[in-house]
């Protein structure tokens, strides 16, 4: 009788323990599946590179600086001339999910030729170079170009893509 009672007690304890193990394993599996399938794709790096490339093409194509780039009118109509639309209607309460800054320098003297172009949300610039998970992605590119009169230039382009809600969990 004693032995039978002990076995029943032991079996009940083991059953509870068994379900506890099942819950732990199930919890871990659910967490891992949620991790893999819940995490969004982060495409902001390639997006900022494409944006930088489009801006660069707007400044210089075929090896020569595009005409009108050094005029003040270009600064004012930059988005229109470069076929860019920085609105993001899919981010309802956004102050802007992009930022573009472009500057042209004399290649020999490194002097700033025209005033820098700044479009988009300038607050995003603070996130560049900072450590952290939910920060905007920045892309900084420089290239050499000449105009038709053979004057040489250095063009710096900074592009920033925020869109944290749709790219980072």
């Amino acid at each position, binding site marked *: 009788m004693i032995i039978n009672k002990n076995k029943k007690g032991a079996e009940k304890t083991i059953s509870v323990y068994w379900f506890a193990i*099942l819950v732990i394993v199930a919890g871990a599996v659910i967490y891992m599946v949620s991790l893999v*399938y819940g995490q969004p794709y982060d495409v902001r790096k*390639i*997006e900022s590179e494409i944006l930088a490339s489009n801006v660069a093409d707007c400044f210089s194509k075929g090896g020569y600086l595009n005409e009108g780039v050094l005029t003040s009118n270009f600064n004012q109509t930059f988005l229109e001339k470069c*076929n860019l639309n920085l609105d993001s209607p899919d981010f309802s309460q956004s102050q802007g999910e992009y930022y573009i800054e472009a500057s042209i320098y004399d290649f020999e003297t490194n002097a700033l030729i025209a005033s820098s172009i700044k479009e988009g949300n300038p607050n995003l610039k603070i996130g560049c170079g900072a450590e952290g998970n939910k920060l905007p992605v920045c892309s900084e590119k420089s290239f050499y170009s000449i105009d038709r009169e053979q004057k040489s230039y250095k063009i710096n382009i900074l592009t920033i893509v925020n869109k944290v809600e749709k790219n980072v969990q």
Partner: protein
Amino acid sequence: MKSIIGKRGDILVGDVIFLVLNLVFLSILVIFIVTKTNDSSIVEEKYAKQIALIIDSAKPVMRINLNMEDAIDKAQDANQNIAELVKINGNVVTVKLGEKGGYSYSFFNNVNVSTYLDNSNNKEYVLIINEKNSTK
């Protein structure tokens, strides 16, 4: 003898309940995993972002054929009209494979984009990139 028969009956019921609970628990787990892995929201996100990036890097005038066979299959399973999976409104791409849900992603290239299902194979979507305010 009588006492032995009674004890055997108790053990059997206990074991059966134990097994059933295990099966129920594992079934719930498997259903969760299958639901998550077959979820169309991942495919919606994938194509919305892919199409937005394609439009961003495209120039007018371009025609791009994008194979969306897996998305079309999922939409067909959900009895959706496969000709209306991808919609472009302004500079926002929306991919919707079911009655509920859908994923939107904006692009920055200021171009006119039209999209339709390639009826020749029903596996690809065609993107036509034109200049803004173009009637082509």
